């Protein structure tokens, strides 16, 4: 395998992994590449290209920014944690070299062909005491710095700013307790990318509509809770991972020095779309953060005015349907499917043709409105009234009543929604 060949393979693999269209094809290409490499290696063809090649497969995007190792992150705590990780990793490596070294030496030197007469010893108190004491001392050495770091991590006092983070299936709700600002944060990766119909974007599965925004250099306290099942809020760059538990409030904190965008994910299995619950945090310099808070306040007021304007007039089907489709695809389609087909008994169909007996979207409007706005307790169907505006709710309900051949002709007005609140 010469350099050119390797280059070609690398491109192929890159194209296959990051590209998108036709994943089956890309898998075949990768398999073929692997097989080809394996064959040539078996044939004794060992050149540099083969040695370097695995790196390309493993980080085809040149994504070594993510690296092989725990990241240092951007907070003092995350750096301390990485240091602890490295210390324990090196201690384990050292112990491993000694133990495996002795073991492989004995396997080599004390095999029957080289050492036909076995020794007969079977105990040695001195050495047994020694190899109990030495590991104990090593462990004490590891425990001391870990204890000091842990004490700092658990010190939630004297925060400059508090954000209440509430998990729910499958989104995060951020509330700034001091500023009376709150918003939901949903994944924005479209279903077409997940289902391999469209090319996957750079931040596939790690992008949201409204990131959490926090300032640099201030101690930000996070209070975590949940509306339904247990979630876990993790941003690796901050080394903050804390479970969000329904009915209880957990605490964590961070102080970020470097402005930027940091990404994480929910790390506690929370149901079907657990993989689709990313976290994005935008860290702004302090003055920009204050400006952002002000913008949010103004935006809230404008939204209030817009809501009043919206419910004071009649909306047409042509206005509501496209907006309804957007809302549906963003919030409803992962469970009920873009074509309204639903999934099994847990996520009922909304297209009347598929399940005429049970479909809610061609039944009475009041029941439909109630289900969308107030949800169904003890299921993944959540109350959407607090999450969506009057117009959005009106649009999505109108859409559900008229899409996929439902064609009820019903138009739900924002005023109706407002009155039902």
């Amino acid at each position, binding site marked *: 395998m010469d350099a050119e060949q390797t280059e070609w393979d690398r491109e192929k693999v890159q194209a296959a992994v990051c590209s998108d269209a036709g994943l089956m094809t890309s898998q075949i290409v990768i398999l073929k590449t692997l097989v080809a490499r394996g064959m040539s290696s078996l044939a004794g063809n060992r050149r540099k290209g083969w040695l370097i090649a695995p790196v390309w497969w493993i980080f085809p995007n040149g994504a070594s920014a993510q690296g092989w190792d*725990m990241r240092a992150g951007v907070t003092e705590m995350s750096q301390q944690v990485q240091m602890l990780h490295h210390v324990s990793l090196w201690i384990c490596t050292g112990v491993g070299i000694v133990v495996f070294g002795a073991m492989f030496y004995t396997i080599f030197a004390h095999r029957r062909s080289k050492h036909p007469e076995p020794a007969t010893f079977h105990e040695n108190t001195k050495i047994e005491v020694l190899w109990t004491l030495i590991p104990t001392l090593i462990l004490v050495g590891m425990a001391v710095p870990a204890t000091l770091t842990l004490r700092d991590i658990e010190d939630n006092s004297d925060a400059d700013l508090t954000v209440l983070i509430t998990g729910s299936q499958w989104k995060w709700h951020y509330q700034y307790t001091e500023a009376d600002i709150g918003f939901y944060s949903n994944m924005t990766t479209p279903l077409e990318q997940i289902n391999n119909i469209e090319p996957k974007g750079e931040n596939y599965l790690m992008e949201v509509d409204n990131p959490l925004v926090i300032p640099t250099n201030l101690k930000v306290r996070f209070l975590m809770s949940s509306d*339904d099942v247990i979630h876990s809020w993790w941003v690796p760059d901050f080394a903050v991972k804390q479970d969000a538990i329904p009915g209880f409030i957990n605490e964590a904190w961070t102080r970020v020095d470097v402005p930027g965008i940091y990404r994480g994910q929910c790390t506690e299995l929370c149901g079907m779309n657990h993989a689709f619950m990313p976290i994005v945090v935008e860290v702004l310099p302090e003055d920009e953060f204050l400006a952002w808070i002000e913008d949010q306040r103004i935006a809230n007021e404008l939204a209030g005015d817009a809501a009043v304007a919206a419910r004071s007039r009649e909306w047409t089907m042509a206005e509501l349907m496209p907006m309804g489709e957007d809302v549906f695809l963003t919030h409803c389609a992962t469970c009920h499917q873009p074509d309204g087909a639903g999934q099994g008994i847990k996520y009922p169909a909304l297209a009347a043709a598929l399940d005429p007996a049970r479909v809610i979207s061609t039944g009475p409007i009041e029941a439909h409105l109630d289900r969308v706005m107030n949800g169904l307790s003890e299921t993944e169907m959540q109350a959407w009234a607090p999450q969506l505006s009057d117009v959005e709710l009106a649009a999505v309900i109108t859409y559900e009543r008229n899409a996929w051949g439902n064609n009820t002709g019903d138009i739900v007005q924002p005023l109706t929604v407002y009155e039902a609140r």
Partner: protein
Amino acid sequence: MIAHAETTPPARHPLVSFILRWVLTTNHKEIGTLYLCLSFTLFLIAGAMAMIFRAELAQPGLQFITADFYNQMLTLHGLIMVFGAVMPAFVGLANWMIPMMIGAPDMALPRLNNFSFWILPFAFFLLLSSLFMEGGAPNFGWTLYAPLSTTYGPPSTDFLIFGIHLMGISSILGAINIIVTIFNLRAPGMTLMKMPLFVWTWLVTAFLLIMAMPVLAGVVTMMLTDRHFGTSFFEASGGGDPLIFQHVFWFFGHPEVYIMILPGFGIASQIIPTFARKPLFGYASMVYATVAIAGLSFVVWGHHMFATGMPLAAELFFMYATMLIAVPTGVKVFNWVATMWRGSMTFETPMLFAIGFVVMFTIGGFSGLMLAITPADFQYHDTFFVVAHLHYVLYPGAIFATMGAVYYWLPKWTGNMYDERLGKIHFWSAVIGLNLTFFPMHFVGLAGMPRRIVDYALPYAGLNLFTTLGAWMLGLTQLLFLYIVIKTIRGGEKATDQVWESAEGLEWTVPSPAPHHTFDTPPRVE
């Protein structure tokens, strides 16, 4: 007159008598065989599930299965591997070997023995039948965290709960039987401190089972009453606490980890001296280390819950206690190496599996020590780093140990030697497959990939492809094991009574294959 009294019962159809023989058997060897067959069947089923979800994870995006089915597969994979593959395999080995190793004619409670086995197929039938129910199989992970498993669990969750109750009854009865056998049926002269290490580790394991399994039964019963009888143990809105579930579950769960490891320790301690041709180094310290590990296993459950918002004092306690486990575990590893030291080693398949066990279990032990460091655990927790750790501990610790034991004792069971060349091929392909599967998981975990996600961000793509290829290799290679075992049962080079030239212990004093009843009169142990 034609009529006269029948002196023999009417001949049954051969199939009927075959089935009745196995259903009604009270012989420890036959029950041991039943356990091992069930265990291997479930091992293949749960392995196939892993291959299904690994296929899905080969590439980013959703290709083959839905997110919900992915969750069902990983839940059943975990449950069946733990309760269906590993635990019955060890009980099967205990049934076969403990009476022969302590010079007993059979298990002390043979009918109970039959009962504790025959509960199991029904338990797993219940669990697997949930796959075909409306709403699908349980989909909340083998850890069954509430409220995902209670308020939000599919209807089939009740079948899971009943299945776990049955498995628990089976394990408790099996454990009682083993304890009673070891305490009452040892041959004259076989003092506790002369028992083979496999018997010792099983004795300790049996006590762990008796203490841990009722806790699991309790917690799934609480799930049941929360689901159907209006209680709120785990429901905050009713005054309960979802974390109570985790505390009770892991109070069972951590001893369970050692239930799945300790017999493996025992097996390695049988195999390594045989092929090193040298007595086990530090027998007494091995016994004490086993007991110490078992004791510590009851006070470390909190290390599974560092991210749940524990107070600092609790985090420190669980961190220190967990780190402490490294000491007795280290003693064991050092003892095995010292047993090999200046021996005269050969490397037949059982020895290869035992060495593979020691090396890779130690790697799992290292990552376990790293996970114990609480601040670092915040970064490792619920990522693939944990998946790598637990599989490095369990695959070598339980599966490799069991397979090594099967190769080691199969000649005694069948009277035939297995095919050494195929055994070695099996070992090496399993080692390569195992490392290809689980080693990259360390890196994706450290890079930030959470576990139990059906789809992942692009940077994790390459390593996941490796893992998937390794998983398929590891899975398929076990079919070779099945072939080797069947081939050995059907024939092969005849084994001597001694089988391995320097094997020691009562099991090697009986003929190969071991007769249906061994030790009608107890042997004398010097």
